[in-house]
């Protein structure tokens, strides 16, 4: 397992910071070109790894995550020294990693390490699951992996949600978990999955795990509700885990035949770019496009991810 060393991080930060500073001075176009892309897609190009080879799969997930992050300028571009970071994986279901119901634990653990290496004071990992939290946290493997990587595991306390003004088009207020919004950075880190209504559950739907209340009612108007919560959350960094994806019976299945391997991790500062990349990955269904279109109309990002010139990495 390769580590993103502190020295790497310092060099990178210096380079990027310098580049940005120079670019801002104006008239230095050649330097501005060094600004890292807003999006990167890391795909495994090494020897195929068997589903059963969990060690190799884990090290692949680590490499994919590290290199994708590095390609968008390193975690230091998003995390400042002393920051408190909340990593919001999909950790909603009582499903082991093989069944692709939750974010890959190695992807989450790598993000934790990268944040800590980038100087984060605390990295918190938590979700508002759809089943008993202790089951979902443990079975997903994320609790153990993230804790091991140095994160603080937070069990959301149902008594500590607070009504907040979303000021959305549709939702004026809703119960949100204060500890999440009080952090300096929320890294939205879902797994790409099929879903019965939207056909795809990705970054935007992952935000359903920061709210409480009768959130199930959102399913009657998902594009509008997800647009409102996304606007409220002001996404800065999204990481899409597509090491495994769920192709049917989503958002949680108990059959291996619904799981496919894509061996991919994609990172973007633009949530809609990543969202539409994920929609494509899951078969490009119109229901999923509706959500992205609604959010794009609200000006939350650029769904034409190819226009962002994402850096495509072949990781070995």
């Amino acid at each position, binding site marked *: 397992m390769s580590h993103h060393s502190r020295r790497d991080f310092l060099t990178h930060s210096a380079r990027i910071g310098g580049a940005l500073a120079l670019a801002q001075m104006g008239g230095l176009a050649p330097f501005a070109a060094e600004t890292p892309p807003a999006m990167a897609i890391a795909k495994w190009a090494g020897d195929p790894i068997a589903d059963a080879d969990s060690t190799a799969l884990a090290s692949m997930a680590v490499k994919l995550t590290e290199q994708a992050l590095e390609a968008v300028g390193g975690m230091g571009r998003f995390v400042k020294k002393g920051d408190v970071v909340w990593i919001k994986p999909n950790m909603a279901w009582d499903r082991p990693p093989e069944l692709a119901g939750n974010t890959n634990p190695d992807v989450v653990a790598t993000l934790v390490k990268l944040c800590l290496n980038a100087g984060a004071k605390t990295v918190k990992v938590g979700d508002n699951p759809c*089943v008993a939290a*202790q089951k979902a946290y*443990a079975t997903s493997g994320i609790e153990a992996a993230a804790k091991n990587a140095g994160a603080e595991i937070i069990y959301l306390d149902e008594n500590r949600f607070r009504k907040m003004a979303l000021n959305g088009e549709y939702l004026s207020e809703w119960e949100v978990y204060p500890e999440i919004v009080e952090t300096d950075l929320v890294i939205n880190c879902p797994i790409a999955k099929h*879903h019965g209504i939207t056909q795809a559950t990705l970054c935007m739907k992952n935000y359903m795990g920061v709210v409480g209340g009768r959130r199930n009612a959102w399913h009657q108007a998902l594009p509008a509700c997800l647009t409102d919560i996304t606007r409220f959350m002001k996404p800065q960094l999204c990481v899409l885990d597509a090491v495994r994806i769920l192709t049917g019976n989503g958002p949680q299945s108990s059959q291996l035949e619904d799981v496919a391997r894509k061996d991919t991790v994609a990172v973007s500062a633009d949530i809609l770019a990543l969202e539409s990349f994920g929609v494509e990955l899951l078969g490009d269904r119109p229901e999923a496009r509706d959500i992205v279109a609604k959010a794009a109309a609200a000006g939350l990002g650029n769904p034409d991810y190819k226009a962002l010139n994402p850096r495509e990495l072949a990781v070995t």
Partner: protein
Amino acid sequence: MSLGRPRSWGPWIRRCVQIACLALFILLFVNTRFREHVEPDASSHIFFHLDPLILAGTFLASYAVPVAALLALVTLAATLLFGRIFCGWICPLGTINHFVGWLRNRVRGIPDAPARWSPWQRTKYYLLIVLLVMAAFGINWIGVFDPIALLYRSMTTAVWPALQYAVEDGSTYVYQADPHIGPVHATRVTEPVYRFFRDHIFLAPRQAFLGGGLILALFAGIVLLNLVQPRFWCRYLCPAGALLGLFARRPLLLRLARRDEDCNQCGRCTIGCQGLAAPGHGNPWMAAECFACWNCVSTCNFQALRFTIEPPFRKRPVAGLDLGRRATLGAAVGGLAGLFAFRLSPQAQARAYHPGLIRPPGAREEHEFLQRCIHCGLCMKVCPTNGLQPTTFEAGLEGVWTPRLVPKIGYCQYECNLCGLTCPTEAIQPLPIEEKKRVRIGLATIDTTRCIPYAYERNCIVCEEHCPAPGKAIYAVDTEITTRDGRKIIVKQPHVDPNKCIGCGICETKCPFADRAAIRVTSANETRHPGNQPILVGIGDLEGTAQQGYGGAAAEQTGVSPYVNPYGQQ
């Protein structure tokens, strides 16, 4: 009036043991909760297995007890040798009663006149006879009165939730209102207190139970009876104490040695006596009522009383236990009457099935289940979703406070078999997880007059999203409907596949309707009752029935057998 300085260390040793046992009981209670990766161990059963009444009742009713329950024979042996030391030293309910009675005497003052033995103390023996007669005919109502089961049930469903409610909602109220003077917020105090309780005392999400108020009221009643007389419950009512009393009429080793020449008949020993066992001058010692608490010995100013260990052949005068032939017979007849009263309902005769009586997975066939269940509430305590609730009358009076799943409150977690693993009498069988997943406890039904895509022209599908069954028991069909303004739109309408539905109820829990869900689970199709299976599951496509026979290829495919419970029980 003070009883003066103690003349013996006996009471102090006894108090230490009592406190230790009560602390152990509470510690085990708190630790018996859902913990991922921690299999429940037998420690949570210690007090149940030490209790001979539970052993006797469960054995009489079902002729089957877990091996560990034989631990109660140790209690019986100890009682034969030393009398009711279980009541005086071990029983946590006894300790609570003892403490409240002591508190009463501290506040009100110790009565001047010694309380005499009362014939009403026989009540507990008659109650025991009623319960044992019923048990012999297959009705296990032991747990309703058994002190360990009663205390556990009351703690689980009432005392603990009430405590947690008070701490959590109190501090949550402060948190939400956030009162402050300038930069000084009240939450600076309340939040650390709240977090301390949450992280070190409660350790699990708060539970709430239907009918918990009644259980709390009964428990409070038992505790408050100590204000009438200390240890009221233990003296007059406790059937476990009665059972031990039968074995303690003439302890083989323990003797209360009285030196009448030193006694000035002051009566202090009788005033301090916890069991009204007539330790003092004039009457023979009633060993069957004595808790061996050592109070009499320690309060005697002249050391006229001593507990001694003597060989069985050294006899000293002991009062016999005369229950009266007529009254004993009457109690037995009372037990029979209770038996018939319980069995009169159509449900008890398996002529009808209560739709709301969804038993936890692994629960035996209803009669057998009730023969073993001791109404203790352990399964409800460990249920991670709070879905297991005490019945009131869904299982008849016979099955009051037994567990049932109430899916609107909580569902049966697909990857969980804790209730079966923790049941002290295996009324709920300890099924391996893979087997448990194949047990049907009910069947979901869609109420199309409420279900949103049927009745209100929009999508929802929350039920389908949450369904954990392999391949999903709930599926959505794209259906064209005509809206109010005449437009044709497509909505996804959910349907239930009875071949796949196991009745876990997560659909009902998660349905956006918070009052009455639009998809509801009833006990229909439960594996344990062939008589309650309206749908021939496992036959798949009806056209293929002739070739496949019931439970053919389709049954193999789903892993769910149509009729037969996978563990051989009907």
